[in-house]
């Protein structure tokens, strides 16, 4: 969402602490870093959002790529259990590590295919079960 160009080294390299009830953590706009990063990593599950990020040239920004790499802590415990959209979030987070995908997602066709596949898979999976 941030429209400011990011500077290298602006991202913290240590994952935020999982919520523990302690309220002395610094807050940003009233939210902890944990909350903000959880929301962002899950927003990456939306193909249209990825396309939007690509169109704003974020996906070729080295700082942003480093940030995407850093966000991989969500694939591991104890953070993974906080994802409420686990499927698309983890899939897109993995895809975003590949340079080819970061270049290709600017294509509306690919965005469209990903959306169609996602919408289809979610109903098909539960139909078969």
């Amino acid at each position, binding site marked *: *969402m*941030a*429209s*400011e160009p990011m500077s290298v080294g602006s991202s913290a390299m240590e994952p935020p602490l999982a919520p523990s009830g302690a309220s002395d953590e*610094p*807050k*940003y*706009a*009233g*939210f902890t870093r944990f*909350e*903000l990063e959880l*929301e*962002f990593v*899950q*927003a990456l*599950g*939306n*193909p*249209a*959002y990825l*396309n*939007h990020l690509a*169109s*704003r040239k974020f996906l070729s920004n080295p700082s942003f790529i480093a940030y995407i790499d850093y966000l991989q802590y969500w694939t*591991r*415990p*104890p953070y993974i*259990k906080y*994802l*409420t*959209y*686990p*499927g*698309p*979030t983890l899939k897109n987070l993995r895809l975003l590590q590949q340079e080819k995908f970061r270049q290709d997602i600017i294509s*509306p066709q690919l*965005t*469209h295919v990903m*959306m*169609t596949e*996602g*919408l*289809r*898979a*979610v*109903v*098909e999976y*539960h*139909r078969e079960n």
Partner: protein
Amino acid sequence: MALLQNIDARFERVERALGTLIDSITKYNPSNKLAADLAAADSELVGALADLERHRHNVARIHDLQTQTAQLDTQIRDTISALWAARRELKNTPVTRPSSDSRTKHNFTTEELLAYARRISRNTMPPPGVTNGFDFSTNRNTASPTPTATQTPSASFNGAEIKTGGTPSASGTPANGETTTTTASQLNISQATTVSGGTAATELPIHLKPIVNPHEGATFIPWPEEHMIRGGALASFSLLVDEGKDPRGYDPEEEEQRLREEEEARKAAEEQARLERDEAERRMREEHERMARERERARQEAERRGSVAGGAERPAQQAQFTFLDGLDDDDD
């Protein structure tokens, strides 16, 4: 070799014994001893021949065994080469290294697992009857339903996408509304084409579908939608940045609370001031009334006395009464 020499020697001995015996017979002087020698030599030869026969047997057996070992050798060689090939294959298989994190076990209870499943189900499990516009009733290989269905998100999200690109910080609510309506109408169109396409025999008329399936035409989206992203924590973060405020340590809710408290304090102060003013006014009014009453009484008294000298004292009396009234009020 030794066996053959042995046989040869015995054979010679038999021949020699035989020769000596024949000589002795031709000289008409046969001897029992020579005959016995011949017999002994002959039996030895027979023994040697039996050895030879056994030897032959053994040779044949050795030959058999050799063939057998040769066969087994081939078998072993085959097995070993197969093993080697398997080993090479194993070695060439890329090893998937478990990362250090996945090796450490994270224990969880069934309860936690179920709680997680319950928490994510609203985002991962479509409500019954929602098909997202995909037709699963017919054979999946028939291509006809897919193209009509794939048009659905394309149209709606492209619309949303243009809005996103154009006005990034605009409010997302109208765009979302537009998205859902477009989706619904597109779905209706896709259903209409399916019906007219020839499967009408088993299809319900469109106007009856929502009665049978309350989720008819609904779309289940398995990721955060645009309006959620636009209304989330990051959006308020972005808003603060756009307003030129540092989001760190700035809590809009706390800020609002602070403003509200300030407002309340201001209102309370105003109310207090108003009450005080009213009170002061009331006192002043009472004082005035009392003064008026006192004045009236003094006047009446003065009139009753009919005194003429009271004119000069009157202002002093007034002042005295005023002063006393003030003291009384304070005591109350």
